[in-house]
């Protein structure tokens, strides 16, 4: 059987005349977790936007003032748009008047490796289209902005929500920037930022690139300005070209692994990381007051930040010792040495089974 691959469009015509009009395009969507399905940190719990926390994986709130809104996977428990099962929802905690230098945004920073083909910052910069489903209790003009990692080159754009409390599909097409510095490595490539309330210092006129730190558009609606206002979003896609195509569903396992390049956590028996046996489950007495083990984790984009909370039990036959303080040393992109050199009771050379106790957790982060 012969096939004809049409040269200028992603379609295949077979010898019997039938055609596959929409060929698969690997990694069409440069946004990770655009369907807001993965929430390792919070498991669906609400988070107060203080200190710029992450909500669902890869989506970070960046705020200049604490506690002006909460964010939660499937906040308000409304029915998602057709074809989606999750969204992330912002709920305003007060009627806050945004100051000149304020900013409240929902951000995903796309890694430079994942936009390297766009040619941004060159004469061959490619056009991209952002599409998403959005629903708000407010109507009017809203803002979003693209920016490079250093926040010194950006593009404000606007979109309109016409009907309150109704899912609406939006698309924004943006000609690629021929200037500015855009990372094409493991650092931040492009920031995709949805404005929830941005002061005039960080607002620009929609529709053009500028050598400035714009986080929103002049005149955009402030979600944090109305007590109880809601802003829900899902199905976020950033793709090459001037036309939005249907959402690029990837296998859940693939999407989860994409998230784990930036963050993972190992909880006590939470079903997403490990059960109560930690890693290889074996530590070694390095000295009478020093026990060590190594941890291997999903490869990160760079050397990871690690934290531990809770208690691990080191057992050896009838002997058990609980330890709730560990340090990490020589962290790499996929392995680290864990040790405690301040607790006595170990025997040099002895192996110990490691058991995580309730509420124990290790977090491994290499976020952008």
């Amino acid at each position, binding site marked *: 059987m012969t096939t004809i691959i049409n040269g200028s469009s992603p379609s295949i015509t077979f010898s019997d005349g039938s055609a596959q009009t929409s060929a698969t395009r690997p990694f069409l969507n440069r946004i990770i977790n655009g369907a807001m399905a993965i929430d390792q940190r919070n498991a669906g719990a609400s988070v107060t936007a203080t200190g710029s926390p992450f909500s669902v994986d890869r989506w970070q709130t960046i705020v200049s003032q604490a506690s002006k809104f909460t964010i939660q996977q499937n906040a308000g428990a409304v029915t998602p748009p057709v074809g989606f099962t999750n969204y992330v929802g912002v709920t305003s905690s007060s009627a806050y008047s945004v100051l000149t230098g304020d900013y409240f945004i929902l951000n995903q920073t796309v890694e430079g490796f994942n936009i390297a083909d766009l040619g941004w910052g060159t004469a061959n910069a490619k056009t991209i289209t952002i599409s998403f489903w959005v629903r708000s209790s407010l109507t009017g003009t809203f803002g979003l902005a693209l920016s490079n990692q250093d926040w010194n080159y950006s593009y404000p754009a606007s979109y309109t929500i016409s009907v309150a409390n109704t899912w609406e599909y939006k698309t924004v097409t943006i000609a690629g920037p021929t200037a500015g510095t855009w990372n094409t490595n*493991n*650092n931040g490539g492009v920031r995709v930022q949805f404005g929830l309330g941005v002061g005039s210092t960080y607002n620009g006129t929609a529709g053009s690139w500028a050598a400035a730190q714009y986080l929103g558009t002049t005149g955009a609606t402030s979600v944090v300005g109305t007590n109880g206002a809601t802003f829900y979003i899902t199905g976020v896609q950033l793709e090459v070209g001037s036309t939005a195509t249907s959402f690029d569903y990837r296998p859940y396992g693939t999407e989860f692994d994409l998230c784990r390049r930036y963050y993972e956590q190992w909880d006590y028996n939470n079903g997403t990381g490990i059960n109560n046996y930690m890693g290889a489950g074996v530590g070694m007495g390095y000295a009478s007051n020093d026990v*060590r083990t190594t941890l291997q984790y999903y490869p990160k*984009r*760079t*050397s*990871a*930040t*690690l*934290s*531990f*909370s809770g208690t691990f039990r080191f057992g050896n036959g009838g002997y058990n010792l609980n330890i709730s303080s560990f*340090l*990490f*040393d*020589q*962290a790499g992109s996929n392995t680290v*040495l864990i*040790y405690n*050199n301040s607790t006595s009771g170990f025997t040099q050379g002895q192996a110990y089974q490691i058991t995580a106790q309730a509420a124990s957790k290790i*977090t491994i*982060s*290499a*976020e*952008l």
Partner: protein
Amino acid sequence: MYKQYIGADGTLARAIVRLLDNACIPFASDNTDYQTFKKEVLAGAELQDADGNVMTQEQANQFIASLP
């Protein structure tokens, strides 16, 4: 606030503890927590040595300048 600590080999670790959540941040230039650590200390955030003594701003600045 941040704190130096002794690594597994008995010398100063090539990492820093963020006391807010006891996270160990490696000295890796691509790590955004490391970038934030350097910015915050230079801006006046407290840095303790491995014994818990608070460094002066001059000492902290010198330490930051010695890092990759």
